[in-house]
């Protein structure tokens, strides 16, 4: 039985809250901007992420029709991207569950800002969100916290998720772990538009999330892949001022250098039109802003993170999909240049993709994609 009065009140509050996140001048946005100012991401990246996270949430928030779940859910947040914190809070509230929001040590303030916003939005969402902090992997502390939750939604690497599953009640953990995404550029695509779109997907969060393309397949010859790689490097250069690369640590700088060294062996030979096949961006604080390498066709490469892209020629979408299929359950999104035709949708979904979207939209998943409202509405993993 759905209590429509309560549901409507909850939806009203959440729709008002979501609107605030879309308003650059709202108290929540201003507070988040300030809180994240000196954090891991440049302000431009923070702004882009905050702008996008609930941009399309209204429809789903309004459409959710289910009895109030009234669960207590623990969400263990990722440190690599910003969006899931806000998305998790709104999904849990939409489901009518109480949420314990455990922040990553890399970003500790967004949960507090969300809790304050929920207080300001009033009943029935006020008081449903409890920010929590502890050092991840603290088994003694977690042994006390895990039993308080009927459901645990955890983001992180596969080892973290397995570790939580081992210690939580069976069937109570929903994990969002490591995954990889690819791009596909059909022949005849507008290369200028495609490279701009792909550059956005690569640049936002510097590929630290699961939704950035690491390998982009270009339908056609080696030369076409090289030209796309060249275009992508230009687009990444142009995008840099508005979406700067985050500061790279020592390990990341070394990993990028090793990636370039290995490209010297893996890359296609320079093409007859005199273009090189390894495009290295300008130095920023000791690290290349980006690296694009054109390689022969093969399975997708997954070269760490830091705006590192492999471009490979392929015969057609079917061949690219067959290559993507080798990622197995780790394949997440496929971004295609131009419109997502039913044929492309079918080919890549059949290969195991969870989502097929346009290049440029890969980093802007629809609200409820990851996590989903249902994650917070059921005590058992569905």
């Amino acid at each position: 039985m759905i209590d429509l009065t309560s549901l409507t009140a909850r939806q009203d509050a959440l729709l008002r809250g979501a609107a605030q996140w879309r308003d650059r001048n709202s108290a929540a946005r201003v507070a988040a901007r300030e809180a994240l100012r000196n954090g891991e991401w440049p302000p431009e990246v923070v702004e882009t992420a905050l702008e996008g996270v609930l941009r399309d949430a209204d429809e789903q928030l309004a459409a959710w029709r289910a009895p109030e779940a009234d669960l207590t859910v623990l969400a263990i947040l990722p440190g690599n991207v910003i969006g899931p914190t806000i998305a998790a809070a709104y999904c849990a509230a939409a489901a009518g569950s109480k949420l314990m929001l455990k922040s990553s040590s890399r970003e500790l303030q967004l949960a507090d800002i969300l809790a304050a916003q929920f207080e300001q939005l009033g009943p029935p969402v006020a008081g449903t969100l409890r920010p929590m902090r502890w050092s991840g992997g603290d088994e003694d502390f977690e042994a006390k916290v895990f039993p308080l939750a009927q459901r645990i939604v955890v983001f992180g690497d596969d080892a973290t998720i397995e570790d939580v599953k081992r210690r939580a009640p069976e069937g109570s953990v929903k994990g969002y772990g490591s995954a990889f995404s690819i791009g596909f550029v059909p022949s005849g695509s507008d290369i200028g538009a495609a490279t701009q779109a792909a550059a956005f997907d690569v640049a936002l969060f510097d590929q630290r999330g699961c939704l950035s393309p690491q390998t982009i397949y270009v339908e056609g010859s080696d030369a076409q892949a090289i030209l796309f790689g060249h275009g992508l490097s230009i687009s990444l250069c142009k995008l840099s001022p508005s979406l700067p690369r985050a500061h790279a640590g020592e390990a990341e700088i070394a990993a990028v250098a090793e990636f370039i060294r290995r490209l010297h062996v893996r890359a296609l030979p320079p093409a007859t039109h005199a273009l090189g096949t390894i495009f290295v961006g300008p130095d920023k604080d000791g690290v290349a802003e980006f690296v694009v390498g054109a390689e022969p066709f093969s399975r997708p490469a997954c070269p760490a993170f830091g705006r590192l892209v492999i471009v490979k020629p392929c015969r057609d979408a079917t061949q690219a999909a067959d290559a993507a299929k080798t990622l197995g359950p780790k394949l997440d999104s496929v971004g295609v240049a131009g419109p997502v035709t039913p044929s492309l949708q079918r080919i890549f979904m059949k290969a195991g993709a969870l989502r097929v979207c346009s290049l440029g939209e890969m980093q802007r998943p629809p609200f409820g994609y990851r996590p989903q409202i249902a994650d917070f509405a059921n005590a058992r993993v569905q």
Partner: protein
Amino acid sequence: MWRRKLPCPRTEVCRYRAVKTHTALEKISLQTPRSADQIAADLDRRIEAYIRCSDPDSVEFDQLALELFAYQYANNDPYRQLCDQRGHTPSNVDSWRAVPALSAASFGDARIACFPEERTTVTFISSGTTRSGDPSHNSSDRSIHELENTKLYDASLLAHFCQCVIPDLDRIRMILLSPSFDDAPQSSLSYMLSKLYSTYGNGGGFFMREDALDVEGIAKALQESRERTLVFGTAFAFVHFLDYCASTKLRFNLPERSRIVETGGFKGKSRSVARDDLYDALSGTFGVSHEFCVAEYGMCELGSQWYDAGLSDAFAGRHVREQLKVGPHWTRTLVVDAVTAHELPHGSTGLLQVFDLSNRGSVAAILTGDLVTQSDEGFIYVSRSLAAPPKGCSIAVDTMLGAARD
């Protein structure tokens, strides 16, 4: 001071003396045109002689190094591409230091060989220390090192082992915590140990089959040791055996001057033990003194090995240089910056870069993924490189590749 009874059978007078340095290309052009096979055979012969040489000459090393570079540039397509990309080719390289180094991980990216596939006689596949982000080259995403023949490999491993581990003996009882090469035909370690066993072994044997350590067999063999014994195995195998000994309260008292060689570190295994703790446990459990417990450093991508200097120092009556790894005279090492790959000042810590003449059939200049500190006489191992995958949602590359294969 202990001395070996007989000289090693490897000593041979060096026949090559260079008088002037040339670029690698000049060296080639000074010679009558020859086929790749002729050049390879000539290099094999001359490098083998250099390995066996008791009085090695550094000018000669440079000459061989440059000729080897020219040969590998001409006959190894992926390596030539790398050299061309970096603008360092036989026409402008005049020292082994300037020869472009290939990342060890690149052995997982392409076929790194100077000869056609059908001439491969032995294929070594790494145990997974070399991280690769690309599953495209081989199904297991591990380094593959093919040998056209094992002449140089054998000469190299036997000579340096003899110098560093058994300078006092011709043969030694060997208890090997590893599968034999018959049981692990793609393991360079198993090949190496099988070769050492057949050449220098005197009883004992291999005590690992199908990834299972025969702990009871090892214990029995140790108890039966009445003469100097060498126990050689991976650190991980030793830890397993030490666990067994601890649980069964077993301790041994191996004959004086017995020795232990540990290799491989922990390579990302779930359990690791600090080096000092491991060596204390080894010394205590086996009854072998600390300076007789040494580490070997090697990898499937290299034909040569490095050993801790401790044992040979002890036998020579020298001050024991702890943890210093010494290489054979047919190799050279550099420490380079992990980002720029430029040579670092003496005493710095950086990536280990090796030039190994015994790698005739692949690439001689190899950039490893290991951080070391260089000294005059060798290097001290520090850790795996920071370029190991950083943490992040999409970064568990090895995990992913494992999952994709399942």
